[in-house]
């Protein structure tokens, strides 16, 4: 079982560009959540996908969007990148509400 896999592991982008991050959930998991973790902070919830629909959304602007595919994998898109978007982006999958989440190793995004 590969667990949660994320790609790429590191990424450098320029202000104003767009970025797409990818996540494959743990086998059998149908729910994918995305988190942003700034340096020295705890992860902040961005949104969650279930059955290809955005089910919950945190306090993030519309520049952050996502998608879930029929095989449960997911993408996080960020448009018009700002310096403040530099962070570790974590994907988590779970089987059901109220259960522990499995996290990927994250994508380190640097915006210059």
């Amino acid at each position, binding site marked *: 079982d590969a667990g949660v896999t994320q790609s790429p592991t590191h990424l450098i982008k320029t202000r104003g560009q767009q970025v797409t991050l990818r996540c494959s959930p743990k086998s059998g998991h149908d729910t994918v959540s995305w988190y942003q973790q700034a340096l020295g902070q705890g992860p902040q919830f961005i949104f969650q996908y279930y059955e290809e629909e955005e089910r919950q959304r*945190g306090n993030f602007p519309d520049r952050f969007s996502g998608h879930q595919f029929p095989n449960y994998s997911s993408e996080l898109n960020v448009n018009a990148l700002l310096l403040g978007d530099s962070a570790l982006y974590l994907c988590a999958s779970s089987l059901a*509400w*109220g259960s522990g*989440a*499995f996290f990927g190793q994250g994508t380190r995004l640097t915006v210059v």
Partner: protein
Amino acid sequence: SQQGEEDPQALSIQEGENATMNCSYKTSINNLQWYRQNSGRGLVHLILIRSNEREKHSGRLRVTLDTSKKSSSLLITASRAADTASYFCATDPDYGGSQGNLIFGKGTKLSVKP
């Protein structure tokens, strides 16, 4: 915004000692979870305690939950150098049922010296 506050922010102990970390939160919860993170990598789920539970054990880990005080503690017994990491508490807030999103604190940085 962050719901939980871990205390202390940093903790340095010798191998073999016990480490205790505390977490306070603000809203009603369905459950509270503890995670470990090594060097800014992915989080590893350690233990989940439901709102109707008061104590839970897993190996060298012991978690308590006091919903009246909105607080939890994580005890790691007989610590090892490999326990060096950041530890986060995360709450699953109860908005009339689980919404599936976790709210994390800022974490406790634990350093275990050999």
